[in-house]
């Protein structure tokens, strides 16, 4: 049998991970004193914690085969909401509760439109994205909220850390780890998780098979709305500033991270450990390239190329590592598409 043994399967599942390690190794050799240090890694995890929370909860939405484009706008809006609450004299507890409520309501709106009304997730969340952004801009009058109105204990959370022996683990990192663990358990070990994957696998079959699709899709949007709200609060706390568009960049990055993670799964399904690697790839690239003092524009080019490369490699290895084939395929059209 002219089949390669387990190598391709290994590469397929771990191709992206290997790519990640290669990137780490590269930066290590390039910046031996600074890159592979504990402080820098703590630093990277803190920098990625906010994107992480969004990407982890987005993973749940994507498991059911949907998207949530509104997360970035929601994160911004939540910052403005909490900021406005502070301005009108609310305490930290009240402001945070209000912010989470907004995230929940926004997620429920998305869920209602997608699962209830039956609009495609793309257009529904594109619509709510626009609405949330408009609301954030309108509420804030386009201006940032910062300064003395923000309680010190709120900002200190985002900059604080917990001392664990030698290690100072930033609060934000811990929070992201918590969300990661939660999502991991839900998707991997619970009945709900199994049902979510079934919906993503074949929606009609799931319904015929007695799964309450609408409720679960609704749930997944609520979770991602809450995730966006948590991320918005983290961003606000970290910067002590709420700007009405400060979360916008999160959306495409989170989706990219989930897609990178999907390459690490046999069935190309979203999975949260893969998403974690995706988030880390994006984080390490930004950190390492900046340390190497690469021009930001070239950083962008490289980031794009590396994403493409990682996905390409893991996709090619799925086809048994016969690289020239995919070129021939375009001409001869033999293989499975």
């Amino acid at each position, binding site marked *: 049998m002219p089949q390669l043994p387990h190598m391709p399967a290994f590469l397929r599942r771990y191709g992206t991970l290997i790519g990640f390690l290669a990137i780490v190794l590269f930066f290590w050799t390039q910046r031996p004193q600074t*890159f592979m240090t504990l402080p820098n890694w703590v630093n990277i995890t803190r920098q990625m914690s906010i994107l992480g929370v969004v990407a982890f909860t987005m993973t749940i939405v994507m498991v059911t085969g949907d998207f949530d484009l509104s997360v970035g706008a929601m994160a911004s809006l939540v910052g403005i909401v909490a900021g406005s609450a502070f301005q009108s004299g609310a305490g930290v507890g009240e402001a945070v509760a209000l912010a989470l409520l907004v995230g929940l309501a926004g997620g429920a709106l998305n869920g209602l439109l997608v699962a209830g009304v039956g609009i495609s997730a793309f257009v529904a969340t594109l619509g709510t994205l626009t609405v949330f952004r408009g609301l954030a801009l309108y509420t804030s009058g386009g201006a940032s909220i910062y300064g003395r109105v923000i309680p010190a204990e709120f900002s200190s959370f985002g900059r604080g850390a917990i001392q664990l022996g030698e290690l100072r683990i930033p609060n934000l990192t811990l929070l992201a780890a918590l969300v990661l663990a939660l999502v991991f358990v839900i998707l991997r070990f619970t009945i709900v998780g199994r049902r979510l994957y079934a919906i993503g696998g074949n929606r009609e079959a799931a319904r015929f098979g007695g799964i309450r699709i609408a409720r679960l899709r609704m749930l997944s949007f609520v979770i991602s709305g809450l995730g966006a709200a948590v991320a918005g609060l983290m*961003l606000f706390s970290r*910067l002590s500033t709420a700007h009405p*568009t*400060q979360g916008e960049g999160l959306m495409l990055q989170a989706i990219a991270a989930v897609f990178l993670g999907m390459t690490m799964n046999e069935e190309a399904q979203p999975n949260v450990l893969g998403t974690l690697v995706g988030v880390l790839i994006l984080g390490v690239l930004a950190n390492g390239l900046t340390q190497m003092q690469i021009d930001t524009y070239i950083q962008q080019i490289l980031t794009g190329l590396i994403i493409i490369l990682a996905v390409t490699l893991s996709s090619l290895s799925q086809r048994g590592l016969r690289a020239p084939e995919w070129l021939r395929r375009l001409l001869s059209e033999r293989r499975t598409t």
Partner: protein
Amino acid sequence: APSIAVMTPFLAQPGTQLMVEGFEAAAADKGWQVNVIDTSEDIAALVSRMEDVALQGVDAIVINVDPTQIEPGLQAAADAGIPVFGLDSGAHPLLATNVTSNGYTMAAETATYVVDRLNGAGNVVMFIFEPYPPVQKRGAIAQAIFDNTPDIHIMDAITPSFDNGPLEGARNAMEAVLLAHPEAGSISAVWAAWDDPALGALQAIEDAGRADEGIVIVGIDATNQARDAIARGSNFEATVAQDFSGMAARVADLVEARLGGMMSAQVNHYVPARLVTQADLVG
């Protein structure tokens, strides 16, 4: 009442906000109806909206954007006989007037402040932004001044990523720079072309526990947030206050004159800016 459209793609910028607020205040005194249009960094949309207001027939348009990039909009206004006023934009033949601070002097003031504080020697990190001409101009001037001081070395000229706002972008970039140069004293100063990256850099420095190394940070625009930082005696030492409301008031006066039938022969009106340090803020 006369109806005035204020148009900008940059309303999210603090400086623009101050100008727009100033103009609205002045307009309220004069009893005008003001319509503020912000296209969130989309220049083409701004042109479209200019065409719309030109067709709708407002009495005057005030812009805060590089006029060379919106010529079709200016043309539409000119065709409709509507005067267009630049508010910190730039000169253009189709503009009635442009009121601005002198970007060259602002950059020179902060750069020379850095040179003086370092006694002419040290390593400077620059935060620049080429895409927006008035800010690009600042970077060029500051760079010229640093290059002209033999013992000042520019370690890095960073364009911060805007993905999560310039504050976060600058902060992440600065964290990486700090890690790449861990020795105390290896970074002498941060020169930022506007206040946001200066604030981001300040946060990074403070979080890294390197606030006591004497890194000098300067910005431009004197936003409230920057003033707070300077006032509390942080590493952020100086910024330049543009007189945004003064500029806005000046434009409002020019608009009023024009509506009254007076033409101004002078195209560029400069409103002076001044350096702000802790001394100016405390007491």
